């Protein structure tokens, strides 16, 4: 009885499993604990300086107007990117689902930005929106919508910079959303649509009362996925603007990078990370309640 119950102890694969979980704990959990521990110290790397200062780092970060402004920018950046990404992803999924000529080319084109790196996306958009040499401003100029003299500097104008970052982020994130939504939409049973059509529902009614409720779980997953991606985004914003002009795109990821690896205030950077982590933990708790991989009882 006992032997059959613990028979995995005799398997060599069990010891490999333990080894791999140990590696996982060291790589994924230990740095967190270490970061948490360091957030109570004043640390200057290279000088061997390490002084216990308790919660001082947290007070310092939470009372800094720069941090609060960064949080505000990150929330706008995240909410804007996820919302726009879902809207564009959903409409392209709807169109791909309804088009009769099931074109592989169309799908391939819509998926194109999926595997493009944030650095490549940022470089491309930076040049695409360039006031002099970019295509975007020139199209509008050539169509006669505005003159060359009042050209818009999308990235160096304080009013537009964050919005431009959001657009680039949407370009990068929506193909994945679109393909996930397409998979969900095409699995909705046809009878549901037919029943609604017989009752005389308009296309918009069908979208709001049939399509959207049927894919709510996918939507929920994508919202969380998008929030995690955008909340942490460093590469894209760094290459596009470096946080400028005058800090108008300094999102939290850039704030942590600058505090830790430019000002070398390691303790304060770790404290900022922990505060970000607490926000994500709340989201993660909701996520794991809804989503469970198959086979988990």
């Amino acid at each position, binding site marked *: 009885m006992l032997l059959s119950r*613990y028979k*995995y102890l005799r398997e*060599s*694969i*069990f010891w490999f499993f333990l080894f*791999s979980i140990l590696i*996982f704990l060291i790589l994924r*959990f230990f*740095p*967190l604990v*270490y*970061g948490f521990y*360091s957030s109570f110290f004043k*640390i200057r790397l290279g000088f061997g300086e390490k002084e216990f200062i308790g919660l001082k780092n947290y007070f310092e970060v939470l009372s800094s107007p720069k941090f609060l402004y960064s949080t505000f920018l990150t929330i706008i950046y995240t909410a804007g990117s996820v919302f726009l990404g879902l809207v*564009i992803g959903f409409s392209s999924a*709807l*169109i791909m689902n309804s088009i009769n000529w099931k074109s592989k080319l169309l799908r*391939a084109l*819509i998926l*194109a*930005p*999926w*595997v*493009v*790196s944030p*650095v*490549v996306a940022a*470089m*491309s958009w930076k*040049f*695409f929106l360039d006031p*002099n*040499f970019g*295509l975007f401003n020139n199209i509008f100029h050539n169509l006669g919508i505005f003159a060359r003299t009042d050209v818009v500097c999308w990235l160096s104008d304080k009013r537009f910079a964050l919005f431009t970052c959001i657009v680039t982020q949407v*370009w990068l994130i929506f193909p994945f959303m679109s*393909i*996930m939504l397409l*998979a969900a939409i095409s699995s909705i049973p046809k009878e549901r649509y037919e029943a609604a059509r017989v009752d005389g529902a308009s296309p918009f009614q069908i979208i709001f009362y049939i399509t959207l409720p049927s894919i709510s779980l*996918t939507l929920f*997953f994508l919202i969380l996925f998008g929030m995690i991606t955008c909340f*942490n985004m*460093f590469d894209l914003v*760094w*290459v596009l603007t470096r946080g400028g002009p005058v800090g108008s795109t300094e999102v939290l990821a850039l704030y942590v*990078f600058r505090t830790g*690896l430019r000002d070398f205030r*390691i303790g304060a*950077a*770790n404290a900022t*990370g*922990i505060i*970000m*982590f607490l926000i994500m*933990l709340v*989201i*993660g708790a909701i996520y*794991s309640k809804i989503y469970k*991989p*198959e*086979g988990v009882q």
Partner: protein
Amino acid sequence: MRKRKLIIKDLSCKSISLLVLLLILAFIILPIFWVIITGLKTDTDLAHVPPSYFPSPPTLKNFLYFIDYGALKFAKNSLIITLTTVICVLVLTLPTSYFLSRFRFPGRKIVIGGLVISQMFPGILYLIPYYQLFDALNLINTLSCVTISLVSANFSFSILILFTFIHTIPQEIDESAMIDGCSRFKALIKVIIPAAYPGIIAITIYNIVISWNVFLSAYAYITDDAKMNLQVALAMMESALYNTWGQRMAATTLVALPIIILFYIFQRYLVQGLTAGAVKE
């Protein structure tokens, strides 16, 4: 009468969706088009304001410039990072997800819960602690820093995807292999890997994409120019003023190209793997 109304409704619906589709396609394609076109332009063509829509005559000079700039060296670094990450992740996750799928043991739920939760941990949170640890271990300025942080980031997601694939393979198959005298490891190699190959391809591609595209950890932990990967090299090109837009855009094209080709070859597996693993309705 009613029928005609329906047709008009249908037509207006179709034209609206066609318009939306065109806008979305323009949104996707125009930046890509502009990058490629600019890379093909000559220097005199590039200096032109307003810029021309097509290069005349097209040249490959800018693409060749990137090779001189050190593209092969950076590509080698990117390749080392990618290969080591993929190998480490596969070796660690395959037996682990197999074990998780086949055995019940106390704490199994905690392990799976831990894997799911750890996907939520923000990547930026690891930046500074890892810097401290690498600094203490004297690993700063080595490619292994990047590999370690990538394995840490991709580990749980890869296990969970593989788990969903292995879990659909009936237990009887590997049990009958073991009756024939296979050990668990042998059964894994001979039976499970051939049966779960779409999942294995999916996580391999996923890991390749993530590690080819990695920027932040390579940027933060490596300062030596000779050890930069392609992404860092591309981002750094910008601060070197003497590079023209043509040279930068050709470099952008070349950095993105291998991964896009790979993606189109294996697209089916990636889509299947991610839709299978991410949402169960």
